[in-house]
C-alpha cells in the first residue's frame, strides 16, 4: 500500500461518495408533472444506453477526481532508491542519553564526550536543507533544540554545550517527544530519530521501561502519520557487560524537620557492583556545600544486596534550609595511585547524594484543648488540662531551650488567625502542627481555618476522648472519606474500670517513620502502654488515602493517617493524656512519641524540598516578607534571576537532577531533585533486550556512523508524489469540464 505523510487526510476519501449521493438525492427530490405528450419521452434503447454511459462516466470521473485530490492532500510517497533522483532532505531529531551513566570513563573519554563528537561529525555529513532538533533524554525530556532548525551551526553549538550527564533517562518518553516534534513540524517524508546512548540495559529494557515501550507501541498502533525511522547508536560498544561501579544510595533522615542543635540521624549506603567491598579512599560529608568532615566508612562490612549501609549524625547550629551531601571517593587521586592500581569506579556521577533538610529553632505547635468549661471565680490557679501532658512532653518547663514551641488554647479561645500568626515573639513561628485534643466539635470558622492550614502544608493531630461528638466528626470532618478526618468514628469501647482487659499498641505494626523508635519492645516502651478504653474507628478501606499506621492488640487502629491537600493528618484513637486510666503519659516513651508525631506532621511542608524531576519547586518563606526578586542556582549553568509576584513561588523547570539553591531576602533554601539511583547499574543490553524493544517499537541498532549514514540514504529515500497527483487532479478537472460541456451542448 502506498504510504502517506498525512494519512489522516485519507478520511477525506469518504468525499468520493458525494457525486452518487448528490445523484441519489436529486432522484429522490423530483417534481411531479401530469403529462400528455408521453409518446415523445420514449427514447430509443441506443439513446438510453448512451445517456446512461455518459452519466456513469461523468460520475465516475468526478469520484475519481475527488479521490485523487484527497490522495494528493494526504502526501503520498514512494520509498526506495530507484525513485530518488538526488539525495533528499531529511528532518532529524538527535536524542542524547543524558543519564549519568554517560559519564562512564572506563573505555577512554566519557561516553558523553564520545556522543558529542559522534553527533558533530554526523551533523557535518548532513546536507544543506536538512533540519535537526536536539533532545536530551533524562527523567524528564530536555528539549535543547525543541524545533528542527536548518541552521546546522546552531546545532553544532547546542551539541557542544550539552549539559553534563545527570540523573536517569526515560527513553520511551524521549522517543515520543521526538515523534511529536516530527509530527508537528516536519513536512518531509524523510524523518529520522537518532538515539545516541551507551547501550545500558537499565532505562532501555528493564521492566519499568518495557511498560513505557508497550504504551508507546500502543500509541503508534493508533497513529497513521508517517513513522520516522528510529536509529539507535551505542556510543560505547566496548564497555564491559557489567563494569565495576561504586555509588551512593539516596540519603534519608529520621526527620524531615530537624531541631536546631539537636542531633539528627541520616542513613545511606555504599552500593557496589562487580567487586568486593573494600573501604573507599574517602567518604566526605558536606553541609550547605562546604566540606564538613570525612566520615568513617564501615570497615570489612559484608555486602547486603550489594550495599554497605551506614548512618551518621549531625547537629545543625542554625535554623533554616540546609543541604547535606555525602560524597564517596572510591579511588585515590591519580597522582597517589600506586603502580598497577586497578580503578574501582569509572562512573563519578553517582558518587554523591544530596538531601535537603529543614531546621527549626523550635517547632511551633498549637495545642487546642477540648475542655470548654468556663473558668469559675473559685479557681485560683490555672486548671489542669489534658493537653498539659502533651505540653510537658513537648516543651518541658525546665528545658531552657525546648525543641518545640508549644502553646495551649482552650477550644472556645481557638481563633482561626492563631494558625496564621506567630506563636511566639520570634518571627517565623507560625504553627506547623495543630493538635486537637479531645475536642467535642469545631465551629464553622475553626473548621475552615483547619482546612486552610492543611492546604498550606500544616500537620494536624487529632486525639479522641470522652468529649468527642462522633456524629459531628463523621458528618462534618470525615464526610464519608471526603473530609480531612482519616477515619469514621464508631463508638467508644472497653471499660476503664477493668484495666486487666486493657489493650496495648501492637509493636509489630509499627512501620510508620514516626514510630521507628518504638519498633523494639522495651521496658517503658510504647508497647507497654495500656488503654482500658479506646475509640473504634473504620477507615474507608482499599483505594483510600487514609491508612491505619499502627494497631492495638485488639487489631483496632491506634493511629490512622491521611495526607490531605498539602498537609498531613494523624488520628489517635486513644487520648494522649491521663484520661480513661491509661498509663501512656507515665511511660518514658511518651515524650519521644509526642516529639516524633509532631515532627513527622511538620515534615509535610519540608518534604517539598526533596523532589522528583519535573515536580514543582515551591518556595514559601518561613518569615513573611513581600514577594520580590529571587535568585535560583540550578544544578548546571548560570544562576537565574527570577521575580516572585506572590507566595508561594512556583518554579517548574526542574528537569535536571541535582541541587537547586534559591536565595530570597537574604535566606537560602535548598531543593534537591533526586536522581534515579538505579542508573548506577551499568549492565549492558543483550541482543535479546534490544530485540525485545525493537519488536514493540521498530528501530534499527547501528553503531558505526559510516554504516548508519549509508543505511539512512539507502533505506529512507522517499519520493513525494503529491505533485503528480496534483497534476492528475488538474487533468481530471479539464476532462470533467470538457465532458460536462459536451454533454450540455448535446442536450
Amino acid at each position: 500500500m502506498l504510504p502517506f505523510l498525512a494519512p489522516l487526510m485519507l478520511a477525506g476519501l469518504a468525499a468520493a461518495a458525494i457525486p452518487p449521493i448528490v445523484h441519489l438525492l436529486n432522484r429522490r427530490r423530483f417534481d411531479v408533472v401530469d403529462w400528455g405528450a408521453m409518446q415523445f419521452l420514449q427514447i430509443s434503447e441506443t439513446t438510453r444506453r448512451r445517456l446512461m454511459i455518459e452519466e456513469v462516466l461523468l460520475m465516475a470521473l468526478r469520484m475519481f477526481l475527488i479521490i485523487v485530490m484527497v490522495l494528493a492532500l494526504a502526501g503520498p510517497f514512494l520509498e526506495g532508491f530507484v525513485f530518488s533522483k538526488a539525495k533528499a532532505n531529511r528532518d532529524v531529531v538527535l536524542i542524547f542519553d543524558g543519564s549519568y551513566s554517560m559519564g562512564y570513563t572506563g573505555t577512554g573519554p566519557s561516553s558523553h564526550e564520545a556522543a558529542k563528537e559522534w553527533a558533530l561529525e554526523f551533523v557535518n555529513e548532513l546536507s544543506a536543507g536538512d533540519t535537526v532538533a536536539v533532545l536530551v533524554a533524562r527523567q524528564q525530556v530536555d528539549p535543547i533544540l525543541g524545533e528542527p532548525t536548518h541552521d546546522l551551526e546552531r546545532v553544532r553549538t547546542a551539541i557542544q554545550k550539552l549539559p553534563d550527564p545527570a540523573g536517569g533517562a526515560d527513553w520511551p518518553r524521549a522517543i515520543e517527544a521526538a515523534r511529536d516534534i516530527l509530527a508537528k513540524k516536519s513536512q518531509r517524508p524523510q524523518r529520522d530519530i537518532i538515539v545516541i546512548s551507551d547501550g545500558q540495559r537499565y532505562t532501555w529494557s528493564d521492566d519499568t521501561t518495557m511498560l513505557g515501550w508497550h504504551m508507546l507501541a500502543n500509541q503508534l498502533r493508533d497513529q497513521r502519520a508517517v513513522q520516522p525511522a528510529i536509529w539507535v547508536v551505542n556510543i560505547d560498544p566496548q564497555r564491559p557487560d557489567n563494569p565495576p561501579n561504586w555509588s551512593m544510595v539516596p540519603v534519608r533522615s529520621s526527620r524531615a524537620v530537624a531541631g536546631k542543635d539537636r542531633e539528627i540521624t541520616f542513613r545511606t549506603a555504599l552500593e557496589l557492583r562487580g567487586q568486593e567491598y573494600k573501604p573507599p579512599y574517602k567518604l566526605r560529608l558536606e553541609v550547605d556545600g562546604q566540606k564538613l568532615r570525612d566520615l568513617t566508612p564501615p570497615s570489612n562490612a559484608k555486602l547486603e544486596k550489594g550495599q554497605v549501609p551506614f548512618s551518621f549524625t549531625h547537629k545543625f547550629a542554625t535554623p533554616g534550609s540546609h543541604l547535606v551531601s555525602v560524597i564517596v571517593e572510591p579511588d585515590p587521586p591519580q597522582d597517589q595511585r600506586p603502580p598497577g592500581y586497578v580503578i574501582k569506579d569509572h562512573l563519578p556521577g553517582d558518587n554523591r547524594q544530596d538531601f535537603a533538610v529543614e531546621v527549626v529553632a523550635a517547632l511551633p505547635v498549637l495545642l487546642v484543648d477540648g475542655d470548654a468549661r468556663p473558668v469559675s471565680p473559685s479557681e485560683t490557679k490555672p486548671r489542669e488540662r489534658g493537653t498539659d501532658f502533651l505540653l510537658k512532653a513537648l516543651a518541658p518547663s525546665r528545658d531552657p531551650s525546648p525543641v518545640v514551641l508549644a502553646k495551649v488554647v482552650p477550644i472556645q479561645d481557638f481563633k482561626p488567625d492563631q494558625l496564621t500568626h506567630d506563636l511566639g515573639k520570634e518571627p517565623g513561628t507560625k504553627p506547623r502542627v495543630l493538635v486537637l485534643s479531645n475536642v467535642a466539635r469545631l465551629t464553622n470558622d475553626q473548621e475552615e481555618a483547619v482546612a486552610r492550614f492543611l492546604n498550606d502544608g500544616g500537620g494536624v493531630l487529632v486525639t479522641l476522648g470522652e468529649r468527642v461528638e462522633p456524629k459531628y466528626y463523621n458528618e462534618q470532618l470525615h464526610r464519608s472519606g471526603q473530609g480531612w478526618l482519616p477515619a469514621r468514628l464508631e463508638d467508644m469501647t472497653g471499660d476503664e474500670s477493668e484495666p486487666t482487659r486493657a489493650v496495648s499498641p501492637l509493636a509489630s505494626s509499627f512501620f510508620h517513620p514516626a514510630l521507628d523508635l518504638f519498633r523494639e519492645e522495651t521496658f517503658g516502651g510504647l508497647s507497654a502502654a495500656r488503654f482500658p478504653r479506646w475509640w473504634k474507628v473504620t477507615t474507608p478501606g482499599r483505594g483510600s488515602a487514609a491508612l491505619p499506621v499502627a494497631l492495638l492488640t485488639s487489631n483496632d487502629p491506634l493511629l490512622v493517617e491521611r495526607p490531605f491537600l498539602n498537609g498531613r493528618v494523624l488520628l489517635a484513637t486513644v487520648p494522649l493524656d491521663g484520661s480513661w486510666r491509661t498509663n501512656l503519659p507515665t511511660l518514658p516513651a511518651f515524650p519521644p512519641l509526642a516529639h516524633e508525631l509532631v515532627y513527622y506532621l511538620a515534615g509535610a511542608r519540608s518534604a517539598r524540598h526533596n523532589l522528583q524531576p519535573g515536580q514543582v519547586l515551591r518556595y514559601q518563606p518561613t518569615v513573611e516578607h513581600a514577594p520580590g526578586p529571587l535568585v535560583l542556582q540550578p544544578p548546571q549553568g548560570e544562576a537565574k534571576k527570577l521575580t516572585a509576584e506572590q507566595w508561594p513561588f512556583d518554579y517548574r523547570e526542574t528537569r535536571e537532577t541535582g541541587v537547586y539553591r534559591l536565595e530570597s531576602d537574604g535566606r537560602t533554601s535548598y531543593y534537591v531533585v533526586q536522581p534515579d539511583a538505579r542508573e548506577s547499574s551499568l549492565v549492558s543490553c543483550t541482543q535479546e533486550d534490544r530485540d525485545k524493544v525493537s519488536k514493540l517499537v521498530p528501530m534499527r541498532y547501528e553503531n558505526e556512523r559510516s554504516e548508519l549514514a549509508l543505511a539512512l540514504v539507502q533505506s529512507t529515500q522517499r519520493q513525494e508524489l503529491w505533485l503528480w497527483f496534483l497534476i492528475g487532479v488538474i487533468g481530471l478537472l479539464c476532462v470533467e469540464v470538457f465532458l460536462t460541456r459536451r454533454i450540455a451542448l448535446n442536450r
Partner: protein
Amino acid sequence: MPANSFQFDPTSLSKYGRLSMMARTVVEGFLTGIHKSPYKGFSVEFAEHRQYYPGDEIRHIDWRVYGKTGRYYIKEYEEETNLKAHILVDASGSMGYTGAHISKFQYAQYIAASLSYLMLHQLDAVGLVTHDTKVRNIIPPKTSSKHLLRLLHTLESTQPGGETSMAPLWHELAGQFKRRGMVIILSDCFDQLPGLVRALRHFRFRRHEVLLFHIVAPEEIDFPFKKWTQFRNLEVRDHKLLVDPQQLRKEYKKNFDAFCKQLREQTGRMQIDYHLMRTDEPVDKALGIYLTKRQGRR
C-alpha cells in the same frame, strides 16, 4: 369555479353563459376590428345599402330609396349559407395538460365556442362532436340561434379524460358525415401518426374541407423542465416516468418536432389546413383562420 375558467360574470346570461359570454366577447371584439365585412352577399336577408356604381346589376337598385333621395342605392343581403361545419373536440386525457397557461382542453373549448358563435352568427350550420376514444357527444349541425346554447352546454359539461386513439373514431365520423361540409378538428393529435393521417384522408375522401387546429402547450414544445421530474401519464393510470429532463430534452424535442413536421407535411399533401395553436396565443387567431378559409370557399 375552476382556476383557469373564463372570468366574466355570467349573471346576465343563462347558466351556460360563460362560454357564451366568452365567445361573444371574442367574436365581437374580432369583428369590430374589421372595417368592411367581406362576407356580405345577396341573400334573402337584408344587410345594408350602398351607393350604386356602374356595373352593378340594376335589379338590385332599391327604388324606394331612389324615390326618397333621388340617388341610386344598391340593397345588400346576407348570403344564405349552405355550409355545414362539424367541430370535433378532442376530450382525451392528454388535452387536460395544464402548464403555465390554461389547459389545452379549455383552449379547445374557447375556440370551439367562439367558432360556433361566429358561424351561427353567419347562419352557417354548426355541429359538435366531443370524443376521446369514443364519441362522448354528437350534435348534428343546425343554424338556429338556440342551437348555440346546446353547443355551449355540451362543451362546458365535457371534461377531458380517457385515452386518445382518434384514428378509428375519425374514420367512423367521416362515414357518418354524409353531406359535404367543413370539419374543424381541435386536438393535440397525440396518437400514432399513420392512423391519424389515414383518418384525415378519409375526411378528404368524403370531400370535406378539413381545418386542423393542433393545440399544444408551450411546455410541450419547449420542454423547459430542469429538475428531475416524474411525468405521470394523463391518459394511462399508473404510467409514470422518472427522468432527468435536461438529459432528455434534445431527444424529446427531436421527437416532437419530427411529429409536428410530418403532421404538417402529411396534412399539406391532403390540402388540409393545419394550424399549430399554442395555448399562450389568443383564441381569435383561430377565428381569422376560419374566416379566411370561409372566404376561400365562396
